[in-house]
């Protein structure tokens, strides 16, 4: 049995189909792992698992010590041999990994497993020694000779160039990387793109764009130039910013310096040096570095910078439009705000449009139509605001301003969008709000601020002057006392002046009556009947006279009862008063011992006066 590493090219599907019936699985099943014994750090190599039978369920071992570049790729091949009329068919499944060695050392890759006829089979483990540097060249680079001739940097180099050395912050700078070569280049790959700190980068060359090639003469030597990478850079800060070198791996074809001792046979030499023979050129790998570039980024001027400036640098125009001017409440309308032009369009922030407060405004949808061509970034960015008016009425959307830094004249420019007047009609429901609970809005605060200043004429006064404790206060405080004393004095004077004795008598009536009764009591004790009767009589008559301001001469029993009746004194008290008066008069002129009568009279008089006093109150 011959194991053969074969490619798909060698598959003969038709034959296989025709002969598959004949073939058998007589041979022994083998599952093998193959790889090179020794590889260099960084080198890529193949690890192939092959099985010479129909297999499925391939399980790869875990490969930790190498990085997997590709794999596993499955391929099938079959071959057929006819020897002495005996047909032998062989089938082969292979699983291929492309691995890269990362570090030095000896590593073992564990066996893989596969199912053949329902049985699991294990491959052999593979041990690979990884050495430093570039040891023997493997199968991968068959054409590259070990003793590669050096390629002069005169013949092959990479150059980075910028279209502007001192841009403004945010201004677009185009970096172009070019290969200059005088020898044929078969392959190149960018291995390291510099990390551009301080820049925002936009790739201007799509992967499928064909390389732009042209010829250029430098110092008398003609080069083929290919632009292989182009970036638009936007500096995010000012100052000196460095574009670090780019790293490029190139495989160039160099004429082989033949080591073969020349024979003198010109035909022979020519034959072997002939390019057709394939030995005249060899592939040489070389790593190239571009030059680094330092940009002197100018800051944007502070003068004239407005608050609305959000970092747009370039040359722009704005347009704004609204899809309808008349709308029903709760129906949506769209406002489009478009910035078009050339510059850092992707940095443009949404415009600060002030909508009427009871419009619902949603975050704008951003539609970009930005071309990143070799000449830089241009196009337009559109902000679509979806707005829903909630109440009917006429509203105005005020113009929004867009500020950008104009590179042509180095100044800030402000553009204003159009002003829109919108008429909102009443929404569904025929304009009637009756019963439409949803149309009512909860009262809400839309902002917090302090209340406004007081603009009236202020009631100013000297600082730290309080009414309390001031002279004014004490004067005002004493004033009522003073006024009261003045009142009392004048009042007393007035009373005397008017001779209003009646009032005095009225006030003193009870006192006088009591005094007389006291005197009468004295006489009673002394037994002075005459004086006693006079005093009692005087007390009673005098009380009435003083109280009701009736002169003594006008007093009579009738006038007394009349006066008492006027004061609403009770009838029985009046009759008692009158009878006491009568008794008094009677006792005065009655003969004999009247001590008993006098006692009664005194008690009666006292009672009558006290009761009348109470009644009159």
């Amino acid at each position, binding site marked *: 049995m011959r194991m053969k590493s074969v490619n798909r090219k060698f598959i003969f599907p038709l034959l296989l189909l025709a002969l598959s019936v004949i073939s058998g699985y007589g041979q022994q099943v083998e599952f093998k792992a193959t790889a090179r014994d020794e590889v260099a750090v960084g080198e890529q190599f193949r690890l192939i698992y092959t099985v010479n039978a129909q297999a499925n369920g391939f399980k790869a071992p875990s490969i930790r010590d190498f990085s997997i570049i590709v794999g596993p790729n499955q391929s099938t091949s079959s071959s057929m041999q006819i020897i002495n009329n005996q047909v032998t068919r062989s089938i082969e499944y292979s699983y291929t990994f492309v691995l890269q060695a990362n570090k030095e050392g000896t590593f073992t890759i564990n066996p893989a497993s596969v199912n053949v006829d329902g049985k699991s089979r294990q491959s052999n483990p593979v041990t690979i020694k990884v050495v430093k540097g570039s040891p023997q060249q493997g199968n991968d680079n068959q054409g590259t000779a070990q003793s590669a001739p050096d390629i002069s940097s005169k013949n092959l180099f990479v150059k980075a160039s910028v279209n502007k050395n001192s841009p403004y912050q945010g201004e677009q700078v185009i970096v172009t990387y070019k290969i200059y070569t005088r020898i044929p280049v078969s392959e190149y790959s960018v291995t390291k793109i510099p990390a551009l700190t301080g820049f925002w980068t936009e790739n201007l060359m799509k992967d499928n764009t064909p390389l732009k090639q042209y010829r250029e003469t430098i110092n008398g030597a003609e080069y083929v130039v290919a632009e292989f990478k182009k970036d638009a850079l936007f500096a995010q800060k000012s100052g000196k910013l460095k574009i670090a070198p780019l790293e490029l791996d190139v495989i160039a074809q160099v004429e082989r310096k033949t080591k073969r001792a020349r024979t003198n046979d010109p035909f022979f030499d020519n034959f072997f040096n002939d390019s057709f023979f394939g030995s005249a050129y060899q592939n040489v790998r070389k790593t190239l570095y571009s030059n680094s570039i330092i940009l002197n980024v100018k800051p944007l001027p502070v003068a004239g910078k407005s608050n609305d400036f959000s970092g747009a640098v370039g040359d722009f125009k704005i347009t704004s439009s609204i899809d309808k001017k008349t709308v029903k409440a709760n129906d949506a309308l769209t406002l489009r705000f478009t910035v078009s032009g050339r510059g850092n369009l992707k940095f443009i922030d949404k415009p600060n449009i002030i909508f009427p407060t009871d419009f619902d405004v949603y975050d704008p949808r951003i539609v970009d139509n930005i071309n990143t061509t070799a000449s830089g970034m241009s196009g337009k960015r559109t902000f679509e605001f979806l707005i829903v008016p909630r109440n009917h009425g006429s509203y105005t959307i005020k113009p929004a301003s867009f500020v950008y830094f104009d590179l042509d004249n180095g100044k800030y420019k402000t553009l204003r969008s159009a002003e829109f007047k919108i008429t909102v009609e009443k929404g569904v429901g025929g304009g009637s709000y009756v019963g439409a609970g949803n149309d009512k809005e909860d009262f809400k605060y839309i902002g917090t601020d*302090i*209340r406004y200043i007081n603009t009236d004429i202020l*009631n*100013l*006064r000297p*600082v730290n002057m309080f009414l*309390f*404790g001031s002279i004014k*206060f004490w004067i005002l405080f004493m004033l009522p006392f003073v006024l009261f004393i003045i009142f009392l004095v004048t009042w007393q004077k007035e009373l005397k002046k008017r001779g209003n004795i009646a009032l005095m008598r009225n006030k003193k009536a009870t006192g006088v009556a009591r005094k007389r009764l006291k005197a009468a009591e004295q006489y009673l004790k002394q037994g002075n009947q005459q004086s006693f009767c006079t005093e009692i009589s005087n007390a009673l008559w005098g009380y009435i006279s003083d109280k009701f301001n009736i002169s003594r001469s006008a007093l009579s029993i009738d006038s007394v009862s009349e006066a008492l009746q006027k004061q609403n004194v009770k009838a029985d008290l009046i009759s008692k008063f009158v009878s006491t008066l009568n008794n008094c008069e009677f006792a005065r002129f009655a003969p004999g011992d009247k001590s008993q009568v006098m006692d009664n009279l005194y008690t009666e008089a006292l009672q009558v006066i006290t009761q009348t006093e109470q009644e009159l109150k």
Partner: protein
Amino acid sequence: MKKIALLFIFTFLAVGLLMAEPQADINKANKAYQEGFYENAISLYEKVIHEGYTSSELYYNLGNAYFKTDQIPSAILYYERAKKLDPNNEDILYNLRVANNKIIDKIDQLPQLFYQQWWSNVKQLFSPDGWAVNTIVLLFLFFAIVVAFLLSGSVKVRKILLTSGLLIVLVTVLVFIISIQTYDDANNKREAIVYTASLPVKSSPEESGIDLFVIHEGLKVQIIDELSGWKEIRIDNGSKGWVKTEALKAI
């Protein structure tokens, strides 16, 4: 009597004359405020205060200008000063609340006993001057009742006058006491606003004192004691401590 009346008239006239010029400054300041030149407004209002004038509205406007320029401690100071002169002004109370929302410290008020609460609420009913006027008005009323009592002939009317007179004597005495207290509160500055961004409150009036807690600018504190460049303060939750005098501005 006539002399006193004349004296009053002259005092009012003099005050009126003095008032004319600062009012012009205030109008200018109000205009500056309306146009958004808050710094100008502040310097004009401050000028009027510096000339020795005061009014709750003036303090209120100045507080607003400070608020607009984001000088919250000053805004609170002037709102508090305005509140002292006009304790029930709704606008002053509202703006003071808004300004207090902007300061860092949110301190829970220690609950007062009900009668303390009641007493301070009663005191807030009028400004110190209002209470002084009330005292005088009540005094006049009392004597008017006494006179009416003396002149009245009717016993019923006299009875009513006697009870109301006694009641008014009580009220007058109470109002007079409140007048004294509010005057004292207003005159002796027992409250202050913190003017230092972050102020450690110490356990003793010396630099080496232990830091008890930290308060921040704009907070109102009570001053309870004073000692050579240091002030003992109490905050609303009842905590006490010592701070440097220059960290505070008295209301």
